[in-house]
């Protein structure tokens, strides 16, 4: 067990280093931009995993949370004329509040009803931002959102932002990892299977559900804030049901409940359509078909499927070796 863990940790460190040096080799802004989008999406999916992946409740309102984070940060930087970092803190606070608010319905409504509530929530948020023209600029969107800066160093190019987002995502990954593989992760997961039994173990399930929702919302809002300062321009029309759906697709493709899977899900779903662009008119439909087939044939996520395949081949190879060995010894 511990040995396994050590190997895992080593793997992760190698991955981290590899990812850190990416901008040194990739000078292409387009690639860096896509990487940045991946990092932001990854944060959202890491959060979504707590609700949809672990406690098994369908949250289709991630775009609303994301939008709230984005607008909170953009608005406070604009109107109070302060650093985007304060915006990030505000986004965390906003995430906390949404989590408490959305967590409450999750106690009363379950399953598809909850997904409907969350869709409704996201739509209401989007429509509010579009129509509160005086504050948000309405459907004109907000422009010139300041980039992050640290001690006078401005994160204003894709390459610089990559480092910033990378560090934040890595930190988010670390926290998610620690929670998922702790007693909290365990109790979140058990809620998915049978809430009554959890309650009989003395766990206040209302409290736990709201915790899960809060973690999820904080991740979503933080990602939203990063997005606002990354794009420099936000518009309510971005935060649609389609966006929420995309986040859930990322989660599914990565595998429900798997933290590493979250990252890979974000990578695959962000990069794949870009890679399929050469198919012109057919790229979106091809992408959707691939995702659908993936859901049907690899229900545990693509990462799991690849790992299994890898194990199988290793097994086959080692079996062959063993056989050969036997043959030789004979």
């Amino acid at each position, binding site marked *: 067990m511990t040995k396994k863990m050590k190997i895992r940790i080593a793997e992760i460190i190698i991955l981290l280093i590899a990812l850190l040096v990416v901008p040194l080799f990739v000078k*292409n802004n*387009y690639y860096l931009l896509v990487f940045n*989008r991946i990092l932001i999406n990854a944060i959202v999916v890491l959060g979504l995993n707590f609700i949809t992946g672990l406690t098994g409740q369908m949250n289709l309102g991630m775009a609303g949370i994301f939008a709230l984070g984005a607008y909170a940060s953009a608005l406070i930087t604009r109107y109070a004329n302060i650093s985007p970092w304060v915006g990030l803190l505000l986004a965390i606070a906003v995430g906390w509040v949404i989590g408490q608010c959305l967590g409450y319905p999750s106690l009363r409504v379950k399953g598809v009803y909850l997904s409907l509530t969350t869709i409704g929530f996201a739509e209401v948020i989007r429509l509010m931002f*579009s129509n509160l023209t005086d504050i948000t600029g309405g459907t004109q969107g907000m422009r*010139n959102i300041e980039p992050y800066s640290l001690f006078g160093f401005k994160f204003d190019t894709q390459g610089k932002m990559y480092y910033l987002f990378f560090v934040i995502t890595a930190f988010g990954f670390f926290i998610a990892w620690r929670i998922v593989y702790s007693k909290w992760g365990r109790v979140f997961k058990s809620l998915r299977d049978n809430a009554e039994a959890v309650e009989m173990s003395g766990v206040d399930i209302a409290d736990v559900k709201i915790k899960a929702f809060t973690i999820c919302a904080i991740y979503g809002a933080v990602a939203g804030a990063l997005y606002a300062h990354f*794009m*420099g321009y936000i*518009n309510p*029309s971005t935060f649609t049901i389609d966006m929420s759906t995309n986040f859930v697709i990322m989660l599914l493709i990565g595998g429900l409940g798997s933290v590493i899977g979250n990252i890979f899900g974000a990578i695959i779903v962000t990069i794949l359509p870009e890679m399929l*662009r050469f198919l012109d008119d057919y790229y979106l439909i091809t992408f959707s078909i691939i995702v659908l087939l993936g859901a049907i044939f690899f229900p545990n996520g693509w990462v799991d499927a690849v790992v299994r395949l890898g194990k199988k081949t290793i097994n086959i190879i080692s079996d062959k070796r063993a056989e050969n060995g036997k043959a030789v010894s004979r």
Partner: protein
Amino acid sequence: SNPDETSESESTNSTVEEATSTSEPVKIGLVAMLTGDNPLNGERMQQAVQLAIDEYNAAGGILGGREIELLVEDDQTLQDMAVTCVEKLISEEVVGIIGPHRSTNALAVEATVATAGVPTLTGGTSPSISELGNDYLFRIRASDEIFASVAAAYAVDELGAKKIGMLYNSDDYGAGAEKIVAEYCKANGIGYVSEGHNTGDTDFTAQITKMGTEGVDALLIWTHDSELAIHARQIYELGLEAKVVSSPGITMQQVIDMCEPEYIEGWQGVTDYVFTSTDETVQEFNKKFSEKYGINTELYSASYYGAALVLIEAIEAAGTTDRTAVMEALKKTSDLSAPVGVLECDDKNNLVHSVNVAEIINKEPVFIKSISVE
């Protein structure tokens, strides 16, 4: 100062030079909404730009015989996608970019094109685009300011409106126009009421009924294609008696086709472009386009055909594929005749300064007049 940086910029320079000396194709990018909620507009954009490029290539290319190559990316009418597409095209070393279309998308890519210094021609009509002061962003359609004020003035001066009612889409397109019309009415002492709706709404009874009870005698409608067609039906069915001046959509075949003739008979539309105009350029363009694609032209094809013309002419005028030079050449554009009118770049990078008014008579947009604004 940094040796690395200098060597880097040198190397990019040399690649550009190399490209000039060889006869590699000149790359132009197009960001269009080929999928998503407005795929038709994207398709027209692509068809028109392709048509223009094919013509130049057939005539021997530009810059002394170099072919023009079109790279098309789909932005699904989403802002982050538009930015991605623009970055992709920039990394593929296009000389200039046509699109993205919607104002919101243009605003989203604005900073990127400025930083990268790549001339971009958008059809976004929001007034805020010309306030950006972005040297690299050009606009190949008239601003909403012009459209909306022409529409309001037309309703008052020519149709004799005493009280104007405005039905507008709450997105930046409709809301921008609403603001202008409201100001116009206030300034001219005309009665005014307005009601908004959201993209995708399908029932406007409440808004239209309100216009009726407010007793408006002229109606301005500012929205997108499918909402416009539904408005036409519901105004007819609810029996609202008012003269209608509409956003450009009503002059387009695809919108007209969605209406029964009686719904829109006598409606006026302000538009960049009417294919029934007697103007020679228009007739010629319509002929070429319908020969190739079997359909009549409308404002998307006309506008973006124009965009392709300006960009290519500017590259030719600059005599190089250097983006800054092309940008400067674009700024010098004047007297270039295109289907949407005579293109002339002003100090805010607007290229189009006239709009047309057309009346729908028996499902046919009939050109009435062209109004120029300085």
